[in-house]
């Protein structure tokens, strides 16, 4: 049938980091690519903290720093353990991060994705925005041969469809390529954009020029739910947000907005945001199920990349780099098969998975495969008991009140033993060590 001829060498569904990485790589290698995005422009539906990891993008666009809209390069990481009135934790700040090619940047996704999408077009891909893919078209054998969209007209055919459709991934799920994501495997995060003059941000965070700070926080801020809060400095704004596992939220009593308000009002956070003007409120799901939640990634005529494939390292708060890397490697696999004139089927596309196994993507997800289960089984302990104990211990230690240090040491040790028992403490240490290795 004439109308079933392939119009493109590949179709990419979605224009986030994974879809853009895939479409760019395919187009640059000379394949004809159609990329379909439901937003008005690439980025208009996309939400992230957001940190950009240079390494993953450098492997796609080495000179990105010259033109991409970047906010601040990260020179300082603060990891906070919080109780209701305090925070303690670990900081790392280094002048080494003021390097010629910085390692991490804060970005605003709507602007960054728009730039990335412009690069995709420059490379020669056809990018169709304001168009929602409604379903995959399959032949009688079940092979994916194209897509149908909400625009009028015939289906569009290609030998392979790269599904970069994000965490909700309706197209792949409805076509039965992967199961619905479970409420236990996904976090709901809410975020606000707080604008302040850049001098104010630099003074508050001890920054010069385009230096930036990242704060990742855990503790009683999530009220016993598995989750984290974050605060990132942009050029003239601060991204602040908090997220928890959906099934925890469902069992709790707090609304996401209340949780965010309480986080913002915390005495450690409030002064950083004081006087700011809020210009946006966003919500997004984050796949947090890790290695065990990764669905089938390839089949006859299709490949899954990015959040749709659950490619998020929740422990290190990395996702966009896994998205770009999976998108790039999927595209490289397709390019190799295309050049050899091979079919894009479940057997040949497995090469994508083999290549992923050799990268940090699968190695890291495998390393932490036990963490989601560990946190879920011990959330009251890890997100409540320990943060409180750490704070109390710090307060006991640093408050000078005439009590001798030996007595203070004993009081601190006793507080840990009373809350968790010696066996409990050892068990927690063992469980963390085992899940971490």
């Amino acid at each position, binding site marked *: 049938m004439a109308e079933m001829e392939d119009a493109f060498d590949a179709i990419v569904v979605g224009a986030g980091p994974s879809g853009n990485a895939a479409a760019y790589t395919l187009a640059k290698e000379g394949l004809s690519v159609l990329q379909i995005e439901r937003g*008005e422009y690439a980025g208009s*539906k996309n939400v992230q903290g957001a940190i950009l990891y240079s390494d993953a993008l450098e492997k796609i666009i080495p000179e990105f720093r010259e033109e991409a809209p970047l906010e601040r390069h990260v020179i300082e990481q603060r990891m906070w353990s919080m109780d209701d009135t305090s925070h303690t934790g670990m900081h790392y700040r280094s002048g080494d991060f003021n390097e010629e090619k910085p390692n991490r940047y804060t970005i605003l996704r709507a*602007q960054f994705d728009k730039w990335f999408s412009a690069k995709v077009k420059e490379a020669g891909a056809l990018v169709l925005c304001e168009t929602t893919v409604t379903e995959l078209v399959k032949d009688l054998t079940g092979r994916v041969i194209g897509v149908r969209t909400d625009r009028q007209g015939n289906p569009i055919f290609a030998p392979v469809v790269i599904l970069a459709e994000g965490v*909700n991934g309706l197209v792949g799920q409805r076509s039965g390529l992967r199961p619905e994501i479970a409420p236990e495997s996904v976090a709901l995060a809410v975020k606000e954009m707080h604008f302040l003059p850049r001098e104010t941000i630099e003074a508050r965070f001890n920054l010069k020029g385009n230096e930036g700070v990242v704060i990742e926080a855990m503790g009683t801020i999530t009220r016993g739910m598995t989750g984290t809060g974050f605060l990132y400095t942009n050029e003239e704004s601060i991204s602040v947000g908090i997220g928890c596992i959906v099934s925890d939220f469902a069992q709790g009593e707090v609304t996401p907005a209340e949780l965010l308000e309480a986080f913002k009002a915390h005495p450690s956070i409030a002064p950083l945001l004081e006087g700011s003007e809020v210009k*946006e409120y966003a919500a997004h799901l984050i796949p947090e199920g890790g290695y065990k939640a990764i669905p089938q990634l390839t089949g006859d005529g299709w490949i899954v990349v990015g959040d749709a494939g659950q490619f998020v390292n929740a422990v290190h708060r990395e996702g966009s780099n896994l998205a770009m890397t999976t998108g790039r490697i999927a595209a490289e696999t397709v390019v190799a098969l295309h050049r050899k004139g091979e079919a894009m089927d479940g057997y040949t596309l497995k090469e994508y998975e083999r290549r992923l196994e050799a990268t940090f993507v699968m190695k890291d997800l495998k390393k932490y495969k036990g963490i989601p289960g560990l946190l879920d089984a011990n959330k009251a302990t890890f997100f409540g008991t320990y943060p409180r104990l750490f704070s109390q211990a710090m307060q006991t230690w640093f408050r000078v009140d005439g009590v001798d240090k030996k007595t203070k040491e004993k009081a601190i040790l006793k507080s840990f033993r009373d809350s968790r028992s010696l066996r409990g403490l050892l068990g927690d240490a063992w469980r963390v060590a085992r899940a971490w290795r």
Partner: protein
Amino acid sequence: MTEIATATKVEEKLFQNRYLVDAGKPHIRVREHEVPSASLLAMTRLCPAGCYAVTETGQVEVAADGCLECGTCRILTRKTGEVEWNYPRGGFGVLYKFG
């Protein structure tokens, strides 16, 4: 924190956002029901945009104009099938300026 205070706050938050509403074509519908499941009921608290509410007769309804398109309601009610969730038509819905 009272419920009313929270509801007002969410509305104020949504006021900052840009939307292109597809008038008369809501992308989320709640299927007809007599008694909502615990999951559907939880959405009246869990929806970050406060789109879900309980009616006087005890059913849960949705007004999706302020939807942030996160998909929480879709995932939480996947087993009960009470929510029919689609993406808005291409170009419509929330339009993030910063993301």
